[in-house]
C-alpha cells in the first residue's frame, strides 16, 4: 500500500505526520511517498491508496491552495472516484469554499468541500475530546483540538447520506461548538479537526482505518502500550471534574 503525504515541509504541525509514520510501522507493506509544494500530486498519476495532509500555519494554507489550484478539477474527480484521503487539523480548510479572516476578508479555497472556516486569531480554541466512531456508534475515540478556526457547512449543505459524521462527541464539541458531529466522511475522504498523532493514541480507530484501507490483518504497532495509554485517557476524559475546553 502506498501513502502519499502532501507538503510535509509545511503541513506538519503538532506531530500530525506521525500518523503516517505510525501506519508505516504497522506494516512493512506500507510505503510512504511525499510531494512538495512545487510538484504535482502523485495520486493524480500514480496508484496511491491514501493521500494524507496535516495541519499547517495560516501562511501555509495559502501556499497549499496556490500549489493545488491548477489541479482542482483532477482532485475533485479523484475524490468522486473514491480516492482515499485523510485530512487532520485545519488541513481540510484549504479544500473548502473560503477561510474568513479576522478583518472580514476571505481567502478563497479550492472549493471542493461544501464548508468554510472562520478564523479568530486572538482566541485559540483548545479542547480535550472523547467520542465515538459514528459508523458503529461504539468505538471510543480520544483526541485533542487546538485551533484558531471553526468550520461550518455552507448554507444548504450539512451532514447527510453523502457527508456522514466521522465521529460524534461525548465530551467536547463537534465540527464547531454548536454541534456534536465531528469531522466527516465523504466517499473515501475522511476529515477531522482532531490533531496530532491520532492513530497512536487511538489503537481501536487505527484498526478500523487499516481495515477500511484493505489491511485488516495488520496490527497497530506497539498495540499493548498504545491501549494502556488509550484506556487511561478514556477514563480521565470521562471524569466529570476534568476541565475540557481551555
Amino acid at each position: 500500500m502506498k501513502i502519499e503525504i502532501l507538503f510535509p515541509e509545511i503541513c506538519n504541525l503538532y506531530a500530525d505526520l506521525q500518523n503516517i509514520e505510525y501506519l508505516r510501522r504497522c506494516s512493512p507493506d506500507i510505503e510512504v511517498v511525499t510531494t512538495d509544494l512545487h510538484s504535482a500530486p502523485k495520486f493524480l498519476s500514480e496508484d496511491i491508496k491514501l493521500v494524507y495532509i496535516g495541519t499547517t500555519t495560516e501562511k501555509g494554507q495559502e501556499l497549499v491552495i496556490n500549489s493545488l489550484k491548477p489541479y482542482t478539477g483532477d482532485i475533485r474527480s479523484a475524490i468522486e472516484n473514491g480516492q482515499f484521503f485523510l485530512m487532520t487539523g485545519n488541513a481540510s480548510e484549504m479544500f473548502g469554499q473560503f477561510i474568513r479572516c479576522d478583518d472580514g476578508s476571505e481567502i478563497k479555497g479550492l472549493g471542493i468541500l461544501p464548508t468554510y472556516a472562520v478564523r479568530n486569531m486572538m482566541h485559540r480554541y483548545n479542547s480535550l475530546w472523547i467520542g465515538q466512531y459514528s459508523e458503529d456508534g461504539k468505538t471510543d475515540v480520544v483526541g485533542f483540538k487546538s485551533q484558531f478556526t471553526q468550520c461550518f457547512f455552507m448554507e444548504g449543505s450539512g451532514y447527510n447520506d453523502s457527508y456522514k459524521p466521522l465521529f460524534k462527541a461525548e465530551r467536547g464539541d463537534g465540527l464547531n461548538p454548536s454541534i456534536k458531529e465531528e469531522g466527516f466522511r465523504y466517499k473515501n475522504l475522511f476529515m477531522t479537526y482532531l490533531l496530532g498523532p491520532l492513530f497512536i493514541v487511538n489503537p481501536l480507530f487505527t484498526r478500523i482505518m487499516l481495515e477500511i484501507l484493505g489491511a485488516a490483518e495488520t496490527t497497530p504497532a506497539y498495540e499493548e502500550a498504545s491501549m494502556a495509554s488509550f484506556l487511561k485517557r478514556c477514563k480521565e476524559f470521562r471524569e466529570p471534574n476534568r476541565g475540557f475546553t481551555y
Partner: protein
Amino acid sequence: MGLRFITALWLAKLSIPVLKITGHNATDFPGSLAIKICPDFFARIEKPKTIIAVTGTNGKTTCANMICDAMEAAGIKVLCNRYGSNIATGLSTCLLQASTLTGKSKYDTAVLEIDERSAPRIFPYLIPKYMCVTNLFRDSIMRNGHPDYIAGILDKNIPKETKLILNGDDLISGRIAIDNPRVYYGIDKLDTDVVECENLLNDMRICPICGSHLEYDYRRYHHIGKAHCSMCDFKSPEYDYEGHDIDFEKGTIKIKDHGEDGVYHISNDSIFNIYNTCLVVALMRELGIGREKLATVMESVRIPDTRFNVQKAGSVSVVTQLAKDKNALAVTRATDYVRHLPGHKKMFLLISCYKDERHWSENTCWLYDCDFEMMNDPLMDQLICTGPRAPDFYMRLLYAGIPKEKIFLELDEHEAARKFDLKSNDTVYIFCGIDAFDLVDECRQIIKKRAIDEGL
C-alpha cells in the same frame, strides 16, 4: 496622578508583605490587584528610562538573569523581574515594587523578561530601548499555536524605535519586525554541525520570500544554522557579533565585533547556553561596555541553578535538568546535552505537565515533536516513566526504539524514586518542568537517602 492610581499602588504595595507573611508568592497578585483597581495601572506607572526587554521561546529567563548579573557586575543598578512573572500583571508587580509611594521609578534601567504572547498588552505602554530575542520555536500547542503566529504577534507589537538584538542563526526570530534597527549575534560553523536536519522539529524548510526549498550551508539543530534560498537571493544575515573558537576546556568563546575579538567566559558548555552568552555580550557591547571590562564582567555571570543542579550522595549524583514539559524543543535540547555528557545515565522523567493535570489534561502531541529517539542511547541505562502521563511516555519511548527492558514504568513518582534500579556511581538525571520543583525535591531526597542507606 489620580486617586484611583494611588489607591491601586498603595494597596498593591501593602499586599506584598501580607502575602509574604502568609507564605504566598508575591510575584503576580499585587500587579493583578493594581490592574483590577486601576485598569490602566500598567500604562500609568512610571518606567525606568532605559528598558531592555528579553523574549523568545526558550532561554529568556536564563538570558534575563544573565543580563542582570552582567549589568550589576558592570556597576549598573538594574531592576529585574528575576523572580516575577513575565506577563502584564507580573511586570506591574515588578514596577510597583520598584516605585516610590507616588509611583515614580527608583531605577534608571530595567531588564524585563517578557512573555512573547503578551506583547499586545505590554508594548503599547512600555518602549524598550533594546529587545533581545533568544529564538522562536514551537512551544505550548494550546497557548502559542506555532512559531509563525508568535512572530506575527511580535511583528505587530514591537515599537518601531526599539533596537533588536537577534539570533542570526535563527531564520524565524531573526526576521521579526523587519524594519526595526537590529544587530545579529551568532556562532560560526562548528565541527559538530550537519546539513540535513536530524530533528523532528524543523520549522524553516522553505524560503520566507519565494517559498522555494531552503538549502542549509550548515545546521546546528532544528532550523538553527546558516541557509540560503535555492531560487532567490534570500540568505541568513551576516553577524555583527560573531562567536567562534569555543574553547570548552578553558570555558571561553571569542566573539568578534567591529573587526576585533573579545574573549569571554561561558558559564555552561551547552551550545544552547553559549548562544545566551553571545546574546548577553552583544547587548553589553551595544550598551558601550568595553571588551576588556566585559570579559571580567562575564566571569561573574552564571546559569541559575534551578535550571541545572548537581547534588551528590555517596557515589550517586542526582542532576536536575530543567526541561519544560509541553515544549518539545526544550526537552530535545536538554536530552541532546545530557546524551553527550560522559558516563552512564539514568533518566527520571518528571515532565507530566503537573499544572495542567490539576484541572484538565495535557495535550500530548508535543511528545511526538520531541526527539525522544535521542534517549535510545547506549549510555542511557534506564528510563523512568512516572507521573500521570507515564503510559504516554512509555509508549513514546517504545516508539523511539528503546527496548522495553530499559524502561521502568510506575505512575507514582515517590514509588518510582524508591524502586528504580539504583547502583553505585550512578548519575540520575531528573528532567523536570517549572511546575514540578517540589516534586523534584522530594524525589531527589528519596534517591539521595537510598544512596546513603544502601551504602552506594
